């Protein structure tokens, strides 16, 4: 059981580090999705450990929410890309301090 939780922690960390270091908004967004999937893995592993269904149900909810997030997120990233011809998070720097 512990192995799955450790794997989920590793995946979560990769995702979080990716958000911080990658420059392309799409890749950043994919890293966020990786974090959510790491959460799913942890939920399912803990559900097995505790022997109840709460965690498995949670995984389904997370998938639905992640899908909704993709719809909103891609729309926003695409409008930015069309306006600037770039999806780099470094180029978007009109707002500062």
């Amino acid at each position, binding site marked *: 059981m512990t192995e799955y939780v450790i794997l989920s922690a590793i995946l979560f960390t990769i995702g979080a580090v990716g958000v911080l270091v990658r420059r392309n908004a799409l890749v950043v967004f994919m890293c966020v999705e990786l974090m*959510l999937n790491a959460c799913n893995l942890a939920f399912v592993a803990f559900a097995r450990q505790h022997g109840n*269904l709460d*965690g498995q149900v949670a995984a389904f909810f997370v998938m639905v929410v992640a899908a909704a997030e993709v719809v909103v997120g891609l729309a926003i990233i695409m*409008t930015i890309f069309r*306006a600037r011809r770039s999806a780099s998070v470094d180029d978007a720097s009109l707002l500062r301090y």
Partner: protein
Amino acid sequence: MNEFTIPEIAYLELLPLLIVFGGAIVGVGVEAFVGRSARRTVEIALTSATLVAALVACIWVGGRLPVVEHGGTATARGLLTAGDTLAIDGPTVFLWGLVLLISLAGVLLFAERKVSAGLPAFAGQAAATPGSRAEREADALGLEHTEVYPLMLFAVAGMMMFPAANDLLVMFVALEVLSLPLYLLTGLARRRRMLSQEAAMKYFLLGAFASGFFLYGAALTYGYAGSMKFAQINEAVRNSEGNGLLLLGIGLLCVGLLFKVGAVPFHQWTPDVYQGAPTAVTAWMAAGTKVAAIGALLRLLHVAFGSAAWSWQPMLWVIALATMAAGAVLAIAQTDVKRMLAYSSIAHAGFMLAGVLGFQSAADLAPGQLSATQAVLFYLVAYGFAVLAAFALVGLVRDASGEVTELARWAGIGKESPLLAGAFAFLLLAMAGIPLTSGFIGKWAVFSVAGAAGAWPIVVAGVLFSVVAAFFYVRVIMLMFFTEPTGTAAVVRPSWATTAAISAGVAVTVVLGVLPGPVLELAAHAGEFLR
């Protein structure tokens, strides 16, 4: 263990929430089936009617909540429903009422068109690239995104579900229902669309990042307690030793919530989003999101982790201090009115966290003593209306190309429009916490509960940073009244809708400052969180 039992749902008590969700879905239908010319009127009428109906239902529900014995002198009233995942108790109904009132004022601001020569504050066609022919055509046709109204209703439903959530999964879903429409609304400004879109992207990426942390915290807490329901988490915390899983879980959950609250070090998005979003959206969301997020934070920390207060209180000490300090100090350096108000909202988040820190178990409270929940509820009312009216006033200072938010160009506004400058100055004084305004009573309430709980260093720091904050509020007032006008910005006359929203905000600020008794009593009557 795995058999399925149908949860009991108290539909009557959930009525306010169901009305708002229903109204939002009907609003989406209106977008599809009502002709373009009539759509705006229908949407505004539908949204206002939904909010008023939900408010009436909310008052009705508040009147019939059953009293629950709570031990000690504190009482709670309300019930748990939907398999104990939603708590309809006094604080919930109080926050529902507050969110609904703020949103009603928000609709009035959304509908404003008079200040910009008949054009709405939202983009004609969000999909058209800024500066393109498609955008000019959309403007020429007078297109308008009336989708903002159903989006707002969905966000309102999320804001109502957030503080009512008594289960980590429901809280996560509510967090997303509240956030996703806000990301979109942020990006829909008609003017300065590049800024607006950039703000939306920053808000979205950071918001999704923070909700990832919240979710992992929920997973770890579930791993620790074996359940996501607050009551059972509390039970597990009480009956077993705290361990790394629990500490990590609390920390990660707090990251997600403190992001929404706008607390240091998760505050970076606040100034960018408040500046980039259409001012009507900023006004409504600055008030509404803070109410919902602080409500949820209170419930999570007091109900689920109340027995583990030793573990989160030191963390919150540091965060409250850093938030007050960063908000007050960084606001001094701002040259933009909206950014300055954003940093002031960060400082206010710090003051609210000081109130959250005032957590004491029911047995420790003397009869009639103000509890942390009541103090924070009062602060939210005071701050919510003041910030809403302040941002609404910012939207009225304009030139030919739209709003003027550079502080330097606000010089001498007081000579041109004493009424606007006077109201703005009054709201700034309320935020600074001058006596006879709601801000003073609110600060007094949160600092006194924090002091009673032994967090007196926070109180000393809070008073100190209030003084620092007062400096930049007074500087803006000096600028408005005692500087020669630059003549590059004019104050436009708004329609009755904006006037009504601003008047309501100013009126609440005055009344709560002079006569705080009724609202404090209402907060006391709301009682404690149901466990």
